């Protein structure tokens, strides 16, 4: 069971949250090539180590926020609000 520190509500069990995949993905303009569009649509970071990802506190404030988590140890290194800069880790 992960214990996730929602930046709005505080630390709660994983069961209250929903996972939303990689964070900080930026949609390219409409004039990009097929390969750049495919990169945006399908290719996601899948690191063995620190992963910056989105979670939603579904059974709490219902707000999305960002989590920096290690995919090997599952340690959560930081949580921060949407729109904030990536943390230095």
């Amino acid at each position, binding site marked *: 069971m992960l214990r996730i520190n929602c930046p709005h509500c505080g630390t709660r069990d994983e069961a209250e949250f929903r996972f939303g995949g990689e964070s900080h993905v930026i949609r390219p303009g409409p004039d990009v090539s097929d390969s750049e569009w495919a990169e945006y649509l399908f*290719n996601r970071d899948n690191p063995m180590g620190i992963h910056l990802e989105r979670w939603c506190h579904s059974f709490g404030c219902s707000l999305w926020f960002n989590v920096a988590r290690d995919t090997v140890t599952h340690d959560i290194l930081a949580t921060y609000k949407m729109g904030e800069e990536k943390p230095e880790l």
Partner: protein
Amino acid sequence: MKGYSFWSLAKNAITGHQSWPQVWRTPDIKSSYDVVIIGAGGHGLATAYYLAKAHGITNVAVIERGYLGGGNSGRNTQVTRSNYFWPQSAAFFDRSLQLYEQLSKELNFNTMLSQRGVMNLACSHHELEGMRRWANAIQINGVDSEILSPADIKRIVPLINLDTRYPIHGGFIQWRGGISRHDAVVWGYARAADALGVDIIQQCEVTGFEIANGRVAGVRTSDGTVAAGKVCIAVAGHTSVLAYKAGFRVPISSQALQAMVSEPIKPCLDAMVMSPTIHAYVSQSDRGEIVFGGGTDVYNSYAQRGGLPLLEETVAALLEMFPAFSRLRLMRQWAGIVDITPDTTPIMGKTPVDNLFITGGWGTGGYKAIPAGGETMAYTIANDKPHSLIAEFDLERFESGALIDEGAASGVSH
């Protein structure tokens, strides 16, 4: 290779089973190979076997970081089936099932295939309508499937509870589906490949690639650099990690998929049963254990251990379907790291790097694909062009948009 037979068993029984030969060698790694395959799981070993057997390429190494068959090949729930919706998937997975049907003879190794039927349950009228469409598509693909009424289901698996919270309205079964012994499949391919001259190198980690002018020339390993004419990545959940090292990205997310077994009991569950709604699948192994699993843990993970919320959900789902199993003790629980693609179809074939091939994106369903995966990858590597069965499973489909979306069609564990 000394074949296993009644006579070899009798002969070795007389000598007290003291003179069985080693099943495969433990060779030192050479400095150069025609083909290096990374990963000694089912797919890597089957690819090596068919390279040697069907294409005469025997100067092959299969390099494994851990031990042979210690990844997803030894962690899956042993299900073999070909009940797929799309023609491309059905053709490939049914070829695999056909190879499984002959595999014990082919490898001279009992893979214990038991074609006891793979059943999918529908828990609403609408789900049953969807399953009728699915079962019809399977038949049009030339694969067997049969719609079942609740009474049929009760007859095949009498322990089932039909009055679940979302009552079971019916389902369908592929009778040719079933389970086999996953370790035997891996060991059988390893032994047969080794006998044809393939070097299986265990406890050796690939740390990088030698790439010059867009062409792979070898791999860097914990035992030194090995030159290779061609290289194939067959590492399941770690596909992204090796792709990064070769300089490209793949549309894969790695997640933990849990499975668990109960203590062994007398035979009580014949067919393999799956429910997409209640979200569990279950079979009874030949050792008597109830083997079951459910969904994947939702977040990316390389930890090879599952989380508790999903464990609880899966056990609850099993007990909803089979209340009698609440009396059983859970004996073991584990997880494998599965490599999931956006359309749940594997990624097989060439990569942006010349002479570097990939077989990955197997997600939660790689075990059933081992024989055909090996056969088609061997063809692809030997001829430097994709085998016709996997031509549409290439990495370029994400750019062209020609996805083969089995996610909706192929049930709980696709």
